[in-house]
């Protein structure tokens, strides 16, 4: 059976079988998940379709969120970029707009794919959609590379956590950004080792990020942090593709992230009692207070 417990075993499988990281994860799913290859690809294609639609909708027709804290940000970013006023460059401008758009869709009870969670759902599709548009990749290729992102997320779920209530925002946005970075590296022709290095870099750069949703709602600062997650993913992928290795491998970085998360006080783990949620302006504007 094709399976792996950590990034080291995953990398060994890629090297032994001369496979991409996404191919190993896809085979693992088919062999262990009681699902045919066609069913798996169908489900992944559906996820990709939902991701695309959830990124497009708030740019076409923006609206206020359920909690009233966000709405219309993605449209502003796209208009700014289309006017030629953007300072981030094409990929990042689009990537952050799509990520923020998906959080708008989510906060207005639209359909999204948790990746790995609802509050961090914008990052993987945001970065991948921006790369697809810039390089004109076929959908089939994007659907395959989602398995790469899934591999990194699976390792975090298995060996650490992806719950903000357990490990803070670094476990949600941090892991989502690590997933996006790893997938971006494979998409742009990097090696499995480079993918895992990029994921490790992200966890390092987002280490300690707290989960402090204003009013306890998945809106603010979650939406801003999804944009930050795209940027962090892009930076880490660029470093890996340039051939910069990382001193700390992904397995160790997952352990570090988990240990830091467990040491966070409860006020900073999705309880809305600390961090941004406790700032005076946030308290005033909170719904339900």
């Amino acid at each position, binding site marked *: 059976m094709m399976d792996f417990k950590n990034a080291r075993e995953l990398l060994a499988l890629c090297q032994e079988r001369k496979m991409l990281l996404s191919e190993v994860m896809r085979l693992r799913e088919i062999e262990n998940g009681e699902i045919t290859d066609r069913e798996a690809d169908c*489900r992944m294609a559906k996820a990709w379709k*939902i991701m695309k639609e959830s990124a497009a909708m708030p740019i076409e027709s923006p609206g206020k969120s359920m909690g009233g804290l966000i709405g219309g940000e993605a449209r502003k970013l796209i208009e700014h970029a289309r006017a030629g006023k953007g300072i981030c460059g094409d990929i990042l401008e689009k990537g952050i707009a799509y990520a923020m758009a998906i959080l708008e869709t989510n906060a207005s009870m639209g359909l999204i794919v948790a990746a790995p969670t*609802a509050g961090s759902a914008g990052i993987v599709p945001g970065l991948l959609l921006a790369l697809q548009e810039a390089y004109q990749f076929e959908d089939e290729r994007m659907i395959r590379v989602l398995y790469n992102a899934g*591999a990194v997320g*699976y390792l975090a779920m*298995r060996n650490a956590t992806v719950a903000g209530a357990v490990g803070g925002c670094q476990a949600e946005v941090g892991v989502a950004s690590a997933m996006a970075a790893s997938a971006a590296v494979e998409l742009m022709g990097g090696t499995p080792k480079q993918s895992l290095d990029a994921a490790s870099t992200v966890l390092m750069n987002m280490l300690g990020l707290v989960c402090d949703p204003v009013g306890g709602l998945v809106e603010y600062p979650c939406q801003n942090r999804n944009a930050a997650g795209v940027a962090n993913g892009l930076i880490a992928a660029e470093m890996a593709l340039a051939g910069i290795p990382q001193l700390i491998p992904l397995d160790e970085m997952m352990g570090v992230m988990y240990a830091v998360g467990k040491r966070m006080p409860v006020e900073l783990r999705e309880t809305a009692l600390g961090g941004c949620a406790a700032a005076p302006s946030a308290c005033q504007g909170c719904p339900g207070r």
Partner: protein
Amino acid sequence: MSFISVFDVLGPNMIGPSSSHTAGAAVIAYLAQKMINGPLRRVDFTLYGSFAKTYRGHGTDRALLGGILGFATDDMRIRESFEIARERGLEFSFTANEKETEVHPNTVDIAMENEAGQKMVVRGESLGGGKVRIVRINQVRVEYTGEYSAVIVIHQDKPGVVAHITKCLSDRNVNIAFMRLFREKKGEIAYSIVESDGSLPEDVAKELRQNENVHDVMVVQV
């Protein structure tokens, strides 16, 4: 450790905004309505903990009602569940209970009444990532996650009932994954929950009811 699928990572496909407060809520209510027979006339939700504090901003109320109407976590009709329930003549209410704190932070009690006048209260907890647990049926503590299809048998706690249940299932070639019996007191009402790896034949309920000590049977297909 149970298998973590790539679709547990890239998923669930869900109506936002929260996997615990929206998707999980819908799943709990979906399972609850499967535990009572026939169309419902009335449903009353009592919300505790974080559910009680933030249910409006998370659409927890719409998701709960959507689950009761049989909608899955990715069904867009969840957004209009209030209107749909009214059209179907289903009465509903929501009560926030912030006094009771000795509960899991995301807990809901769902009190249902069907058109035949039968009543049932189900308590569920939303554990995060869309995962849930049913922890109480009426007054009896139970444990059911909804990950497997299950037969729930309400019966008198008397000898021979469990043998009857397993015989009915083995006659139909059902492979039992887990089986547990929950009861409040010896000899009184008991709930046997039998979880199966595959799907369950619907007619098994009819045969299970043949035993005089069996009061009711529900088949929950997932």
